[in-house]
Structure formats: structure tokens, C-alpha cells
């Protein structure tokens, strides 16, 4: 306390305090504050709904070829997630059954076909060895394929998209692929395609 009673010392302390305040003000003059503000950020609610169109159910197979001998196009029963084709037959050159299906995107975001998975049919309980290429599966004298045209020439491909509120026509084509008739009968059971759509 004696020290603070010294007049000179009190003067020095006052000068030091004024110096500190002065430096602080000078620093504040050389500083800029930048402000970034988002007015509004909205996270919209979205729907995901990709399914088969069941408006036309069952879907009749359109037969092609010459006479109906050996050819039967069973109806296709459609639910939102499955299409099941009834027992059918293609037995001679030119025989073909075509089913016009539709995949409907009633959601609010674009759907992308991410995968096309195939399951080979079985014959007499044993799985067949089929040649698979994208949406085409050749199993002996019968070819199964998914196309985007009624003629059956353009295969459905992965990465194809369906816009929100739009539909994609998909044709299931089953045809006899040989140039001659066969002396033996073969019944293939359970050939299938699984289409995986992602958002």
C-alpha cells in the first residue's frame, strides 16, 4: 500500500493503463467481421413409390408366329411388385409371347434401375445353365428377355431412369430361338427377372 502512495509510481501505472487501452482500440480498427446468413433452408418431404402398374390385370400375352400349334401364351398376373406368367409354350420357329408391362413411378424423385438380376429356370427340378446378357436369358431353345419396345429388339438396361410421376413400358418377351422343331419336349420352370430400382 505504501508503494501505491508513491506519486510517481501511480503516474506510471496510469500511463501503462492508457497504453493498453489504446493498443486494443487500434487492433479493433484493423478487424472486419463478415457475416453469412441463410435466409431459409427447406427440406421437402419426398415419396418413394416405384411399382408395376396394375391397371391392366391380367396382361394377355400377344402371340406371334405362324399357327398356334405348340404355342400358348398364358396370362400374366400383375401385382405392385410381381408379375407371374401362367403356364405357356413356344415350340416352333417364330413362336413368341409378348407381355406389355409398365413400371410406374408415382413418387416424387427420379428412380434409377440399378440392377437386373436373373434366375435360371429349372428342368425336372435341376437348374438350367442359361446364357445371360443383361436383360436377356437364353435357356436352350427358349429365350426370355425384357425390352423397351414391342418388337423386342431393345433390351432394358441398367441405369435407365423413370422420372417422378412417369412410367416406363417394359416388355417381357419369350420366344423360341431355334430354326427347327425339336423331337423332345422340355418344360422350364421358374425363369425370372428381378428389377431393383433405387432413388
Amino acid at each position: 500500500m505504501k508503494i501505491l502512495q508513491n506519486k510517481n509510481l501511480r503516474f506510471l501505472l496510469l500511463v501503462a493503463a492508457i497504453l493498453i487501452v489504446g493498443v486494443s482500440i487500434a487492433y479493433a480498427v484493423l478487424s472486419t467481421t463478415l457475416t453469412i446468413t441463410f435466409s431459409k433452408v427447406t427440406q421437402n418431404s419426398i415419396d418413394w413409390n416405384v411399382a408395376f402398374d396394375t391397371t391392366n390385370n391380367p396382361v394377355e400375352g400377344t402371340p406371334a408366329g405362324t399357327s398356334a400349334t405348340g404355342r400358348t401364351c398364358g396370362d400374366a398376373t400383375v401385382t405392385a411388385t410381381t408379375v407371374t406368367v401362367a403356364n405357356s409354350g413356344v415350340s416352333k420357329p417364330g413362336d413368341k409371347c409378348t407381355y406389355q408391362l409398365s413400371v410406374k413411378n408415382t413418387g416424387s424423385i427420379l428412380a434409377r434401375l440399378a440392377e437386373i438380376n436373373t434366375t435360371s429356370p429349372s428342368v425336372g427340378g435341376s437348374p438350367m445353365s442359361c446364357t445371360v446378357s443383361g436383360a436377356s436369358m437364353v435357356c436352350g431353345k427358349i429365350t426370355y428377355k425384357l425390352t423397351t419396345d414391342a418388337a423386342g429388339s431393345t433390351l432394358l438396361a441398367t441405369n435407365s431412369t423413370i422420372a417422378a410421376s412417369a412410367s416406363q413400358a417394359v416388355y417381357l418377351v419369350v420366344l423360341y430361338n431355334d430354326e427347327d422343331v425339336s423331337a423332345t419336349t422340355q418344360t422350364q420352370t421358374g425363369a425370372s427377372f428381378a428389377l431393383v430400382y433405387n432413388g
Partner: protein
Amino acid sequence: MRNKYVSTSLFVCAFGLLLVVAVAVAYAALTSTLTITTSQMTQQALTWSVALVPGTLTATEGGDASTTGRVCGTATVTTTSITVADTTLSKGQDSCMYTFVVRNAGDISAKLGTINTTKPSGCTSSGSTITCGTIQYKITTTNSFSGTAVSTSNVTVAGGADKTLYLHVKNTAASGTTSTTAEYSNVGYTLVFNQN
């Protein structure tokens, strides 16, 4: 102190697990798998067998009562060919008609898809009618020279059925006149049947 550490660790693990499950559910909610299945697809055994009924055919002759100058050669039929022996039609309206049968022993309906003709130079053809001077060749669906000529639109043979057709050759000159001498060799047809 140790209990507090254990509690904190358990909480962190539980939170992490919930996060993983939530992400998986969110992803699954944006995926649809659509399945297309064929129940049974049968490729039936079938046979294709369209052929002529073999044998030897004697012609039905036409023209005036006199057979002078008219000789209808016999036709030898195999499963795939008909060969008519030398024939002479000297007078106007002389004719020979051969009845032959196309047999479809297979399972599939057949139709006449193509008619090709073979003819020497100077002859003309229209459909199944070949004309060489006054001599005319024709295949018909009825047993008359003036009957309906076969065409790709009027000949079908169901599986397991027969179709009878008629092969004609006629001197179309007016009755009683004498034809100019002429010879025409190797006039013929190729009939191509396809599945109907």
C-alpha cells in the same frame, strides 16, 4: 469413476448402432425390387413333315375323242418330286391332268410360301401358269384347267392332313386346229411350303 466410464462407453456404442440401423432403413426405403416370373414355359416336341404322296400317276386326258397326236406321259412321284414322262399334245384343246397329293404328316400347319417356275427361253409365266406358245402349264386347286390356280394365298395344309392339287398341261389352240410343231423341255415348278 470407473462406472462412469463404462456407462459412457455403452451409451456411445448404443448410439452408433442406432445410427447404422437408421441409415440402413433410410436406404431400404428408397429401393424397390420388382420381380417378373414365368411359371412354366414348355417347348413342345413337334415334327415338320410336308411331302408328296409317292406313286405313279396316270393322266386324265382331255380333248377330242381321238387320241391321235395326244400322249400323256405317266408322272412318277417321289416324296419331293414329280417327273412327267414325254408328252405330246398335237391338237387344240388336247390336255393332260395329273392329280397329286401334298401330305402334311407333321404337327404344324403348312402353307404354300413360294412358287418358282423353270422354263425355256421364249416362255412366260404368271403365278403358277406357264405359257410356251399354245402350250400352257398350270397347277390348280380344283380338277379343271380353268379352275383356281394355286397361289401363295390359297394353299394351306393342316397338320396331319392332305391337300389334293392338279397339274395340267394343255394345248390351248382352238379345237381342231393343228399346232405348229414345237418342243419344250424341262418346264417345271418348285413349290416351297412353310409353316403357316
